[in-house]
């Protein structure tokens, strides 16, 4: 086996506890992007997400010695970061009156309005996807922080209910309940309950057609919306 094998998360955390000055940075760097995604979706905007992630990182750095090893290190890191975000949300008590999409401006600066997997879409499709993203994120903001965190972990990030329960430090049944209630609250906002011909509605947006103008500003409303 190579001597340069990658050290495991648990090894890095143990090294950090023993005083290694670089171990925690390496460990956090491994999971930073996913932790950022969770913080961003939980908090709803990049500024608060950065604050939540930073506070979570500080807490993890200082509380590393309390890690008991009965869960994966990444689960523990998620728990610390999510708890920091939820604490911030509870403290803020939803001060913002107008929900805004969390990362659209950031994406616009980089010339992409949707994720990297959408690069093949034409501008019309990008516009539709952009609108859908706005709508989902705005609807997500109407949930309680606990419901939002559960849905972010389970439905967005794809963690199992058991993993999410560990991250949120609650019972699995609690996670299921929060997800169930959260989806039920989102459904009307997303147009899922609207009467259709039978197929699952597509977030209340019009079907993607070539009729969508391609010359307008990329962030404008769909032209054929009634």
């Amino acid at each position, binding site marked *: 086996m190579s001597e340069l094998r990658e050290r495991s998360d648990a090894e890095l955390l143990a090294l950090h506890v023993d005083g290694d000055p670089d171990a925690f940075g390496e460990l956090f760097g491994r999971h930073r992007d996913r932790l950022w995604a969770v913080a961003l*979706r939980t908090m709803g905007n990049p500024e608060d997400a950065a604050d939540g992630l930073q506070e979570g990182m500080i807490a993890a750095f200082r509380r590393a010695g309390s890690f008991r090893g009965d869960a994966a290190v990444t689960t523990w890191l998620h728990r610390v970061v999510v708890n920091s975000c939820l604490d911030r949300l509870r403290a803020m008590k939803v001060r913002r009156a107008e929900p805004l999409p969390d990362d659209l401006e950031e994406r616009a600066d980089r010339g992409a309005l949707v994720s990297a997997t959408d690069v093949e879409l034409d501008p019309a499709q990008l516009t539709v996807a952009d609108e*859908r993203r706005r709508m*989902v994120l705005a609807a997500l903001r109407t949930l309680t922080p606990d419901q939002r965190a559960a849905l972010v972990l389970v439905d967005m990030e794809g963690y199992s209910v058991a993993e999410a329960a560990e991250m949120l430090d609650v019972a699995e049944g609690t996670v299921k309940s929060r997800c169930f209630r959260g989806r039920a609250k989102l459904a009307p906002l997303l147009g899922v309950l609207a009467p259709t011909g039978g197929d699952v509605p597509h977030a209340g947006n019009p079907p993607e057609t070539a009729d969508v103008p391609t010359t307008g500003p990329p962030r404008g409303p769909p032209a054929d919306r009634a």
Partner: protein
Amino acid sequence: MSDPELTPEQDEAVRALLASVRHTDPTPPEVVARLDETLASLTAERREVPAAPVVTLASRRRRRVATALLAAAAVVVGGVGITQVLPGLAGSDGDSSSAGSTAEAPMSADDSEDSAGGDRGLTDQSQRSSSADEKQDDSERQGQESAPLPSASALGAGAALTTDEPLRPQVRAIQPQAPFTSSYDAGSACLVVAQTGESVAVTYGDQPGVLVFRVPDGGTQRVDLFLCGRPDAVRSLRLRAP
């Protein structure tokens, strides 16, 4: 209004919509820079403040007991010291020269045996000191014994003492030997609080103070002990007037 009950299809549609807005981009560079900066300060802070040494409860208890013993010893030594200068409490034996040299206070028969053998009641460890040190100690003791000290036993002669005349030269002998005289100017600091009467610098335990012999009144004379920096007398007694 209660939330609607979703069919499995509707539930799956909501989940699909949520999954479609999953954030997959990397952490923005400005956030990465901020995190790196925070991490650097945390690491630096950790280097500057090493973990405090763990103090076990047992060692803390031992330290507390030692402190209590030390305090008790100081009280005993202080008590012996004051009895040497206050005849109403006790006298002094010939082997003890001053209140300042409290370690030499006679306490037991063992001490008198040590004294007879030329030792001064030192511990076993100090008994193993070099002969040169012993000679120096002997010469010091001889110098102290040259003062006209009372020879009565500390406890036995107290009741028979009718005047403080024998006490006065002893108290005066304390002054030049007091351990604080070189670093503490009792004459300038403690006399501020001294009252009317004859003041003599003394130590009470390890604290400098002043013994004030009041003007005799009606056949008795009051003696007050003041500790430096404290306005009130900490000990008082009456002697038969000289």
